[in-house]
């Protein structure tokens, strides 16, 4: 049962990764990258590693996504100036 869950979650992660690469819309790509981290943190909880899961959820899916969003905004502003 648990291995089925792990395999399904892993497949979803791979799918999100492939989608993120092929996404034309950058915002969606950033959010898909965050989804990968969120799924990874669920996996860590299933694998009984709550410490790592907390780090992954907080840094990987939240903070990294926000930093990417800010970077995206900055790039767009710069494009407008030029």
């Amino acid at each position, binding site marked *: 049962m648990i291995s089925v869950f792990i395999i399904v979650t892993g497949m979803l992660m791979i799918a999100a990764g492939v989608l993120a690469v092929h996404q034309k819309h950058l915002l969606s790509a950033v959010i898909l990258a965050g989804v990968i981290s969120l799924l990874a943190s669920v996996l860590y909880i299933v694998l009984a590693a709550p*410490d790592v899961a*907390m780090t992954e959820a*907080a*840094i990987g899916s939240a*903070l990294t996504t*926000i*930093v990417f969003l*800010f970077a995206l905004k*900055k790039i767009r502003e710069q494009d407008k100036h030029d």
Partner: protein
Amino acid sequence: MIRKYAVILILGLFVLMLLPLLTELTPFQELSPVAQKYAGEGPDALGSANLVTSVVVTYRGMDTLGEVAVLFAAAAGVGFFLRRKEKRPAPGKREASALLKTGTAFLLPLILLVGVFVFTHGHLTPGGGFQGGVLIASAVVLFLFANRSASVSRTILQWTESLSGVFYVAMGALGLLLAAGFLDSRFLPPGEFGKLFSAGAIPVIYSLIGLKVGSELVGIIDNMRGGAE
């Protein structure tokens, strides 16, 4: 066309390189000797209910200090490259929606509380300085999203970060003087197993790490945001 084949070739070589990992993989039946030592004597020697924390803060305290230093270097780099004398968010920028504002007013104290709980209880429950610090930073980010014109005080950030860093190293030096070695947490009494004030200096050190990580990440976010004076 030739590029495509080169990519496929390199990927194939990569698979070839990693294949032995898959075929020769055998699951661990028992802990390695070092892990056995940590798991066996860790709870008794250090008095920390969360074994992960006693490894992170005491046994591998030096690595944690290194990680904090790396984070500091990253924050300094972001500050160096992105700190521009930009005008404040241009007037006329639309305000945050009522939904976000109300939600933030409700959630902000809760997130801050959880953040502080996570790093003060690092020796009892999962999590610790890094996770708690990131939670606090995300609370600040939420606040900044809800209040577009608000700004973070650089002075407070810098002082929090510097002081917690200095005290972290000072705790390490105290361990060197009073206990077995640098960052040894046993110079404070171990207390009662499983209580908040226990496990020697581990909660103190982890709280300092939490403050340092939190202020560094808030600094990074503030610099990315375009920074205010």
